[in-house]
């Protein structure tokens, strides 16, 4: 198990607490979930309902938008949003989207939402600014497009001191910058204040409304909702249960087992300890024209079983070969060596396994591997060269 992917040993007590943690992953909420949160905090959103199967669909009442619930920027351009002015268009839209694939993502839910009479589109978001270590407000009177494409001089930005929190003067500054009149301005300030509460209370990395629509009758309404939560905060949000749809089935399996694991499209399986060393291993492979099949950080462990389980995961990705790169510290080299031997036997691995072991209990580890027919390297680069060479030899 590797809840602590870097270099920490896990005490049983911590394991219990962390059992619902995903491993440093983001938690993207679907639009409809984000809007549920907005609604709960009093941010105006259009009336809407979710359709998972055609029978969920209600009778047409008002012009509606049919929106596929996928986590993808530019859904509209990719055909993920349909407009329905009558019963037939509504049914067609739902039928067309539900079950379809948009840029590789399956649409299992659509949101049926009242169509807004749009006068103007604004942008507003709050996100973590890493350099300032602070919440960061971004707002613009040019919404409806990616904020990256808006000229800088039209973007309002403001750091918030996390101990002070949001206060109204920040909203006044934003309203002035955006040139809103007092009626729109007071709506905007109320939305911004609530959005900050969402950001804070729900432990978000990002809350974004794009577009924030000004309707023809002068109301501001969140036409979209992008909410990314901090997965490390899930112990405070036990009601949230989201599986990141950007993950592959194997990544999800690894996540449920507590590994930091990323699938890539190469052919060399990678097992290393520590996120940095694992990345460095992949980098070195790539620079040597090798292609990593995965990122797997063994974490800090002293358990043979965790090594065996890691092998199982990597084998499921069906690589041509496996590279193990361990710098022994908390994770002792001999533990890993024993794990390699056990995995080799358990899964009857015939693919090449190239091992580099260094650090704590290196000598014992070397002895164990040699006894089992593996000649380990003590330096990283020869191991990299070796695994690339042997993988290249495989048909």
């Amino acid at each position: 198990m590797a809840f602590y992917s870097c270099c920490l040993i896990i005490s049983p007590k911590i394991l219990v607490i962390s059992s619902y943690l995903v491993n440093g992953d983001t938690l993207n909420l679907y639009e409809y979930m984000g809007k549920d949160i907005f609604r709960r905090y009093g941010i105006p959103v259009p009336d809407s309902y979710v359709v998972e199967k055609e029978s969920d669909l209600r009778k047409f009442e008002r012009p509606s938008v049919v929106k596929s619930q996928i986590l993808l920027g530019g859904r509209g351009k990719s055909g993920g949003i349909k407009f329905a002015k009558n019963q037939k268009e509504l049914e067609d839209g739902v039928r067309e989207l539900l079950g379809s694939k948009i840029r590789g993502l399956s649409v299992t839910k659509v949101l049926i939402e009242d169509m807004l009479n749009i006068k103007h589109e604004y942008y507003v978001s709050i996100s973590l600014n890493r350099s300032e270590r602070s919440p960061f407000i971004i707002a613009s009177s040019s919404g409806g497009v990616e904020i990256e494409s808006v000229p800088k001089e039209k973007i309002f930005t403001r750091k918030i001191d996390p101990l002070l929190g949001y206060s109204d003067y920040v909203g006044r500054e934003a309203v002035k910058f955006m040139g809103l009149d007092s009626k729109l301005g007071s709506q905007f300030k109320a939305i911004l204040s609530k959005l900050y509460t969402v950001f804070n209370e729900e432990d978000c990395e990002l809350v974004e409304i794009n577009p924030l629509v000004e309707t023809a009758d002068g109301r501001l309404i969140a036409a979209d909702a992008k909410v990314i939560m901090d997965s490390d905060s899930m112990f405070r949000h036990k009601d949230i249960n989201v599986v990141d749809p950007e993950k592959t089935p194997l990544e999800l399996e690894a996540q449920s087992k507590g590994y930091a694991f990323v699938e890539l499209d190469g052919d060399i399986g990678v097992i290393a300890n520590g996120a940095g060393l694992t990345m460095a291993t992949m980098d070195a492979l790539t620079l040597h024209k090798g292609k990593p099949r995965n990122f797997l950080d063994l974490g800090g462990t002293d358990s043979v079983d965790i090594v065996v389980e890691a092998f199982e995961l990597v084998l499921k990705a069906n690589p041509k070969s496996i590279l193990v790169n361990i710098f022994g510290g908390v994770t002792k080299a001999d533990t890993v060596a024993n794990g390699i031997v056990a995995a080799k036997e358990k899964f009857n691995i015939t693919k090449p396994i190239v091992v580099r072991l260094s650090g704590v209990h290196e000598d014992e580890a070397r002895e164990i591997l040699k006894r089992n027919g593996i000649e380990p390297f003590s330096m990283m680069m020869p191991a990299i060269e070796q695994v690339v060479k042997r993988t290249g030899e495989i048909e």
Partner: protein
Amino acid sequence: MSVLVNKNTRVIVQGITGHQGAFHAGEMLKFGTKLVGGTSPGKGGTMFQNDVPIFDSVADAMSQNPDATMISVAAPFVRDAAFEAIDQGIKIVYILTEHVPFHDTMEIVHEASHRGITVLGPNGPGITVPGQCKIGIMPNQIFRNGDVAVASRSGTLTYEIVYSITHAGFGESVVIGLGGDPVVGLTFVDVLKMFEKDEATKKIVLVGEIGGNNEERAAEYIKAHVSKKVVAYITGRSAPPGKRMGHAGAIIEKGVGTAESKIKAFESAGVPVAEYPVNVPDLLK
């Protein structure tokens, strides 16, 4: 003179009776760190390894006049433990724990900075001044006293690089792990300031990774303010965008935080960037 800690630094461990806390406290003692106490609510009055007094609270442990604390409690309790230490005015607060919600870290880091308190981590290996003091979880055996200061966002990779530096015949004046989270207590710029002032430091190694713009800011700072030789290594060249590579902070978002950007920034600041970890010592020559 040394960076942040020295042989007189008095250290406590919050959560000293936990699995990790106990293990690493033992390793710190072996290293020679002046470990003067630990905390574990309900276990006040007992001893750790027959030698180090255990207290119920940091308030009680203040009788030992600690200068630094290592926090080794589960993530949901880190905010409480950090504020307990900050409230008592301990000057260096190192947070070992991974998976601390960054909203908590933001509050900890801001409050600490108001009070002139240094936060190391969360989710980093700590700090080591060879021959003097180790606070954290770096393996004891990889260091040699020397004049190379190392700062890193990683754990194991740091050991790999420190080991290769030591192996190549150099030694370290200090090794600092900033932490792998998106929000941590120290930036590269913060430690560069310390390294530039530190008389024991002649050369500097920065070990960066993808995510954020900590390295780019460091490069700007080096151009303007650092006279000592700086070399770097950046990991994550082969990482795909949008995927977290183990560390919560190691992610390329919308083209920001790429290895290319960081390497380019360092090179334009005259900082050579090693291709492989093992090349770092070559660049120091």
